[in-house]
């Protein structure tokens, strides 16, 4: 399938053909197994995340949404930012703060914006999408969502993303994609984007009604309920049907080193 990625020191996104089953990358005449490439994050703009966009996630809060401190269920999309220090890449390690035993794995479809989008109608959203990739929106587990969770979500390396962006035309329906998480080869979560409260087009239409998304920005559509937990040493693979797999290992580090961030 047609995709875009950055690897082996390339600064710009390269158009490639990806065989996600065999994990082969073809550029021009040359086909290479992905494990022989150094893969960089395929995104460069601001990465926005969406809170409480899975039906089960909102249901898990139950009647608490009508009680203090929330008072009422959310009305508009709730966004947050995964800042640049969090951006990480396929096969890199995710630094675990040494005081945490476990981190939450947040498997999410990531929509990459293809051109400046402001007040875009639901029907037109497709024209503003470059393509789709996979993100692991890592968090320190936290039960309250009343205050912005910067410390919990914005630590270095907490947003692996990639390995490639699948061209939007390759995905017939982003609102019907199966998502799985494997930890050390064992299936830990099965989900689908059918369970989104706001499907992709509706979400982008509502978000761009109050803020501009620029070319290269990325919108994470949401993390499902009951996110699995990872421990030191765990290898975590997130697979989204029609896109591919993003794999990273959680490793306790005193001082994370980012050696591959061009």
């Amino acid at each position, binding site marked *: 399938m047609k995709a875009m990625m950055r690897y082996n020191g390339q600064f710009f996104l390269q158009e490639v053909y990806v065989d996600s089953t065999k994990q082969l990358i073809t550029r021009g005449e040359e086909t290479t197994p992905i494990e022989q490439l150094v893969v960089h994050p395929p995104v460069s703009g*601001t990465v*926005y995340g969406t*809170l*409480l966009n899975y039906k089960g996630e909102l249901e898990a809060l139950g009647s608490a949404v009508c009680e203090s*401190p*929330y*008072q*009422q269920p*959310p*009305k*508009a*999309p*709730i*966004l*947050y*930012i995964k*800042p*640049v*220090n*969090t951006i990480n890449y396929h096969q890199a390690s995710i630094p675990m*703060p040494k005081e945490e035993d476990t981190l939450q794995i947040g498997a999410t479809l990531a929509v990459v914006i293809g051109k400046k989008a*402001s*007040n875009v109608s639901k029907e037109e959203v497709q024209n503003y999408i470059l393509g789709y990739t996979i993100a692991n929106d890592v968090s320190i587990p936290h039960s309250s*969502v*009343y*205050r*912005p*969770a*910067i*410390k919990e979500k*914005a*630590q*270095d390396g907490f947003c692996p993303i990639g390995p490639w962006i699948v061209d939007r035309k390759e995905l017939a329906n982003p609102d019907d994609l199966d998502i799985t998480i494997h930890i050390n080869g064992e299936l830990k979560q099965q989900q689908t984007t059918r369970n989104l409260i706001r499907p992709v087009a509706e979400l982008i239409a509502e978000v761009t009604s*109050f*803020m*501009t*998304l*620029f070319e290269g*920005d990325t919108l994470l559509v949401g993390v499902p309920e009951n996110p699995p937990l990872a421990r030191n040493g765990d290898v975590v693979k997130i697979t989204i049907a029609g896109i591919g797999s993003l794999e990273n290992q959680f490793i306790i580090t005193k*001082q994370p080193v980012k050696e591959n961030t061009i």
Partner: protein
Amino acid sequence: MKTARVAYKGNIHEAIEWYGKLQLDTGAIVSEDDVVWLPPIVPQTIFALGLNYADHAAELSFNAPKEPLVFLKGPNTLIGHNGETFRPADVTYMHYECELAVVIGQSGKNIQEKDAYNYVAGYTVANDYAIRDYLENYYRPNLRVKNRDTLTPIGPWFVSADEIKNPMNLTLRTYVNDSVVQEGTTKDMIFSIPKLIAYLSSFMTLNKNDIILTGTPKGSVDTKVGDTVLTEIEGIGRLKNTIISEPVYQ
């Protein structure tokens, strides 16, 4: 050193003050009115503080926080000096927030309070508008309240750290149509600049051109279409902004 980023005749320049005019990096002297003022820094991560002044927290009926209340902003929300911020048609309460903006000068992690100023490149003024109608109690204050296009004027000047002897003792003032509506001092911050830098860098790397908006003191008043809002910080600058209607903006 005080520097601005301006657009002039189709190009972007760095500029310095020159006897009430501007000297561009080309050497040309131009009038302040002949340029478009841009945000003085092209930002990396933008942090903002909620409730970082005790009097403002009390005004909003909150207790002072025990840990800094931090939220993030995207680059879409910044606009320069003399810019126009639109007020959505359906809102009843939109207020300014005059804030000292701290610009980070070099990357750092686990920065100690005593070393924090070594990581500060300088300062500017920000007006961190909020639209209270859109507040919801999820990751509050959320991006729909704080991250709208044009909602964060910043500038006019980037003032290098060496020019400001004590950033923790500066008067902040906001004028709406020339009347003073907000007055405070950075002395009253709950979490000081060194504390904020130590706090943030304890769990994430700070980078060059990250900007920390350090919060606002008491004195929030609704601003209407047509109002001129001037946010001023002693020794740093006077940032002018005009509120326009949504139809005019679009």
